[in-house]
């Protein structure tokens, strides 16, 4: 039966996430925006709290660890599942309503953890339990064309030797391991790209520097070099075979799971702006009326209605993508649709809310200007707006990457 409400099953988890966001993230939001690169020590306690909740099995995880497609039995008494993916996007959205950068800095909730959850074997999953894994894909010469990466991994006995430079590694300094993409054989193209888990204490790994950024400043973004970095062969995630037919799909499968999460970040960040702006407008005497035609209301109310409608669209596309993953349906198209819509809506909403609130919104006295800076990265990382459009267009039009480049 068609129903697009927040799942009843996840209501408690979402309430918890909201309370955490309101009472732990918001109070330190501005502090760590100003103190870029300072470690938000408050998050250690928060992470322990979240671990505690997860241990009890009361929730499906507040973040990245929840994306694995488990095959456990349905507990809704029906055939439709509302599982870990929906729980993850909804709780991530709540946390980013609190603060996107702090969510990204959450210990043991890195994007590398999502990669592990998506592609690791059961044995690896067990072995990596409790690690905080960053994700290293982008290189100075390779952004969206991630099939073109130059970092190499060469088999040497029971080890792989990794060489290369990775940039834009979120939590690259704070995490205790890094999932790095490297090619086994550049000649074989994307099929030869594999991901490896590298411990941060590996002598061949070096954090070179941290970036100074437009937004999400509380999250550390590192440049990491790998110089004759030796990792045990069992730390190659997934299969070591170079399967030229489906090869890249394995690595890219991570994105099907992480893109709805990034959409969730944009949805959460934008809602922070909408919530505050609505309140400020109401205090100024502007009430949003859903029945009266927008053009008969004030321009501010009409603008707000437009923003909220777009936002609702992004949120429902995000839920759709997660719901499909929960029900073990392929969701590459829907994940990219959600990411594309949420990414651009996140920017439009947060920037427009600054406009509606004038210098009040532009000032550091409120968080509106911060959200308008934080949201921009969400239309870039884990696949830019343009990459999402490429993916959607190829799927919809039935074109290969050679035909639509």
């Amino acid at each position: 039966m068609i129903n697009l409400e927040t799942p009843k099953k996840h209501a408690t988890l979402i309430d918890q996430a909201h309370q955490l966001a309101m009472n732990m993230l918001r109070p330190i939001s501005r502090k760590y925006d100003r103190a870029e690169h300072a470690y938000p020590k408050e998050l250690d306690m928060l992470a322990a709290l979240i671990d505690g909740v997860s241990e009890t099995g009361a929730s499906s995880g507040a973040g990245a660890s929840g994306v694995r497609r488990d095959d456990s039995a349905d507990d809704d008494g029906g055939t439709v599942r509302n599982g870990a993916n929906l729980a993850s996007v909804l709780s991530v959205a709540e946390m980013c309503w609190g603060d996107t950068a702090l969510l990204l800095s959450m210990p043991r909730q890195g994007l590398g953890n999502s990669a592990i959850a998506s592609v690791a074997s059961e044995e690896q999953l067990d072995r990596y339990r409790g690690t905080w894994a960053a994700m290293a894909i982008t290189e100075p010469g390779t952004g969206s064309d991630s099939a073109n990466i130059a970092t190499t991994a060469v088999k040497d006995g029971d080890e792989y030797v990794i060489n290369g430079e990775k940039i834009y590694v979120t939590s690259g300094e704070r995490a205790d391991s890094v999932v790095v993409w490297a090619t086994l054989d550049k000649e074989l193209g994307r099929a030869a790209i594999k991901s490896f888990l590298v411990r941060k204490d590996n002598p061949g790994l070096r954090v070179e520097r941290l970036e100074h950024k437009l937004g999400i400043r509380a999250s550390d973004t590192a440049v990491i070099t790998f110089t004759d970095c030796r990792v045990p062969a069992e730390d190659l995630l997934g299969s070591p075979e170079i399967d030229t037919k489906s090869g890249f799909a394995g690595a890219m499968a991570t994105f099907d799971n992480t893109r709805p999460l990034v959409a969730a970040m944009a949805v959460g960040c934008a809602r922070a702006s909408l919530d505050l702006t609505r309140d400020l407008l109401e205090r100024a005497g502007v009430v949003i009326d859903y029945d009266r035609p927008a053009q008969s209301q004030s321009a501010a109310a009409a603008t707000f209605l437009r923003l909220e409608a777009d936002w609702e669209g992004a949120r429902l596309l995000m839920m759709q993508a997660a719901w499909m993953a929960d029900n073990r349906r392929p969701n590459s198209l829907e994940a990219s649709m959600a990411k594309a819509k949420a990414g651009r809506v996140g920017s439009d909403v947060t920037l427009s809310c600054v406009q509606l609130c004038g210098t009040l919104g532009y000032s550091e006295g409120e968080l509106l200007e911060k959200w308008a800076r934080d949201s921009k990265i969400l239309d870039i990382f884990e696949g830019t707006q343009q990459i999402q459009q490429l993916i959607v267009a190829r799927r919809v039009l039935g074109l290969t990457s050679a035909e639509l480049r």
Partner: protein
Amino acid sequence: MARTTGGPLVIGVTQSYRFAMSFLSNLRPGGRHGLSSREARDAIGLAVAAVSRLAQSDLIDRVGLRKQAEQAVYSTTRNGFRVATAAGRTFARSGRRTAGARPANAASRGVFDLTPTDDEAMLLEVVRELATEVLRPAASAADEACAAPPDVLAAAQDVGLPALGVPEELGGIMEERSATAGALVAEALAQGDMGLAVATLAPGAVATAIGLWGTEAQQQTYLPAFTGGSASGVPVAALTLAEPTVLFDPFELATTALRDGDGFVLDGVKSAVVRGAEAELFVVSAMLDGTPALFLVESGADGLEVEADPSMGVRAAGLSRLHLTGVRVDADALLGDTDGTAYAECVRLSRLAWCALAVGTGQAVLDYVKDYVNGREAFGEPISHRQSVAFMVADMAIEVQAMRLLTWKAASRATRGQDFAREVGLARQLCTEKGMRIGLDGVQLLGGHGFVKEHPVERWYRDLRAVGVMEGAVLL
């Protein structure tokens, strides 16, 4: 204007001033032919206007320069002719004035789900076939004729569309509130053709309204005819909320209902009336004691006139205006409450239907341009291989799905009896803006071929513009 305080002289001056002004305003172009009232004619303009008048005059017809004389009969394709409404059938009164039966709300398991129920899926299968096999092939000619062909209307009746929103105990087909089923059906029909979808859904809008808000008497008097209990078939019926004014707000109507003894007297003009000339039953919105309310008006009532109002799109619905001049109805004509609650729900459910129609037509555009850009070659390869083309298609796919999800959310809340004012407000906002964009891009992607009637995209462009301006006509 000067008031009468100045005595007879002032009145005389004022009158001649008025006369002079109306004479001048005849020379002034403003207000007609799409000209702003700020326009002024100079000498050359006046001369050109005179030549234009001559060119349009009967004189040249009498000397045989024009081929055909126009007939002053009602035609759905021409504005301006007014005729009395159809004589219509007599609905036999029965039942009491107590509250009628109400459809039950659907229960929810609280599970996020995008899967239609088995019943809805079965219904959809039938309606999709109707849309593909009957509506789409008839669409172009119906658009031209500003009328829905009888076989299309009959096919829709056979499927049972008019009774879709009527509860089972009143002879309908659904056990529970069926706004979701209605949204799926409207979407599927509009994927065939929006204009014909509106024409086929219009009687159901009136039946659903009576099912939702009618007294026992109103339900027993009118509903049997809609649910197949009448030898003369389902009555042509129209839900009329819109009025032809700028910045129209359905909660601030110019049409009035004045209490008169036991009944009411209605005055005003309604627009976007589906198949007005044939309609036998209208639901008319009017201000009663400062609050909008709904009234059942049978076409035989004195003081009703209908005027064809062919518009930019949705032409197959035979859009018209309904003029009400001192129309007397009895106390039983009031449909629903007088505090505006039923009326607000009516406006929302109608907008919801328009959203569903926009989703269907948006999907039709997407499906059509998809094939076109893959087949059309330029510079040695399909134009779909170009990002500027492909990305427009991608955006279309993204937005039509967002429109669909918002519409479904509002519909499913209505089905469960939850408040859906916010959801339908947002759905309408998105469907208006993105629907128009999809129509625009649909024509653009076909280039010159999109601009000519050889392809349906120009019709969809016109139809999708309706979503933001329409109120009434359809209802889920």
